[in-house]
């Protein structure tokens, strides 16, 4: 299978999965779509408020483990 064929196949599979999920009832979408795991640092406070969204992004960059994926991608990265 060429890369192009694989990409086409994967695209079709993803779109089919989207259609299947949209056809499910709301309760099923929520049951399978929300799952909570402990996020170090993020989940260690019961309340946080940030004056600006930029402040929140900066706090994530400076405090959260990188593997959580909250870090903002800098230009040229």
């Amino acid at each position: 299978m060429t890369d192009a064929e694989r990409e086409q196949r994967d695209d079709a599979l993803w779109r089919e999965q989207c259609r299947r999920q949209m056809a499910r009832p709301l309760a099923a979408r929520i049951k399978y779509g929300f799952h909570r795991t402990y996020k170090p640092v993020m989940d260690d406070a019961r309340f946080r408020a940030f004056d600006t969204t930029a402040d929140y992004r900066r706090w994530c960059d400076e405090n959260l483990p990188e593997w959580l994926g909250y870090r903002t991608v800098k230009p040229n990265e």
Partner: protein
Amino acid sequence: MNEGREFRPEQAVEIARAFATHEVDYLFIGKGALVLLGYPGMTQDVDVFARRSEQNGRRIVAALGSLDFMLSADEQAQLVRGKDFVQLKSGPFDLDVIFAPDGIASFEAADARRLEFDGFRVADPRDIIASKRASGRQKDLGELPLLEKFRQEYENAHPRPLRRAQDISR
């Protein structure tokens, strides 16, 4: 800490009902909103985009109280003042209340494009994706291609009549 606090289907209805009862101006956004629409992915919390006003802030506080969120007087004040981003982990599930999400010009603009079903007020997938793109976060940028394909499938399944010339250009 806080293990086992899952977002259950009935809680989704409770949020929508509580916010409606207290006349909160809000929209579900983020990947949670896309999950409600049928996105085949997973998320860990619920994000809402709320209109910033003291009146709406008071309504949010009242609605959250009815959902058993425990908020101190100071925390309530910060919600009423409408700080851009408020994270709540003191209730039955995690909730982010966002008054100024990245990539969305205004609540009014997003609200005009909202989707409504079963009592849920959800931002248009295009606005949700624009916000994720603007956030610049690793986890969001990596998922954008999948989100865009879902958006296309969603719009194919739920065509909306064009109302304005700018709807074509978006």
